[in-house]
């Protein structure tokens, strides 16, 4: 299995990896891929490269949609609620619904459950 260092060195313009076409660190992408499931054992050298581009496109799309929400609210600061709204409004981002509602509820009281007991005479 090829190591990430080989091609990331070639295309990232050197050791720093900060300059060059890849905006995201390939080694980190590879780590995340491996943690995604037990089945994921072998990853080709190209896969992190593909994800580097895919993530860039994903981040840009989600950011753009979130920004539209920000603008609708006549604000200039994109906040996390804008991101949550964009996720809710986009079918493609269904897989993120739990993620954004978790981060939205952190520190707040959980939604009321239907376990309230009413004393009725």
């Amino acid at each position, binding site marked *: 299995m090829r190591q990430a260092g080989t091609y990331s060195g070639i295309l990232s313009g050197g050791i720093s990896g900060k300059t060059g076409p890849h*905006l995201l660190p390939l080694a980190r992408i590879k780590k995340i891929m491996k*943690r995604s499931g037990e089945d994921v054992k072998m990853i080709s050298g190209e896969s992190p490269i593909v994800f580097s581009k895919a993530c860039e496109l*994903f981040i840009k799309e989600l950011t753009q949609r979130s920004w539209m929400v920000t603008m609708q609210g006549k604000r*200039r600061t994109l*906040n996390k609620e804008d991101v949550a709204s964009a996720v809710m409004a986009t079918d493609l981002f269904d897989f993120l619904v739990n*993620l954004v509602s978790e981060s939205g509820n952190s520190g707040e009281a959980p939604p009321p459950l239907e376990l309230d007991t009413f004393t009725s005479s």
Partner: protein
Amino acid sequence: MVDGQERLLPIANVGRIMKQILPSSAKVSKEAKQTLQECATEFISFVTGEASDKCRKENRKTVNGDDICWALGALGFDNYADAIVRYLHKYREVERDKATQNKATCISSQDKDEESSEDKSNQPPHQQAEAPSTRV
């Protein structure tokens, strides 16, 4: 103890990509960046899972770039798939050219002849005028 940040894409990189698409006057809260960071990480896991399933069904051990492209299409990210297929082909070309250049450098170290390193290129080879003829 695993550092929580290591399981995510680096926030600085995420922030940089966000800046590319936003107007220069736009501001982004730290929490929004963190949310994007987590979403992008989840995106990788989500797509990898789908690609990995496909490999397993086809009795293949290695998830490759084409599997990722396929998974993106299968999950609805068709518009990404096109751009990425092009990106991947360019990457493969670069790799091929590097390999070719390395070979060429070894073989013809004296020859400084023009060598088109771009395959399928219809450009005429770079011609240098050796002796400009002047007419008086």
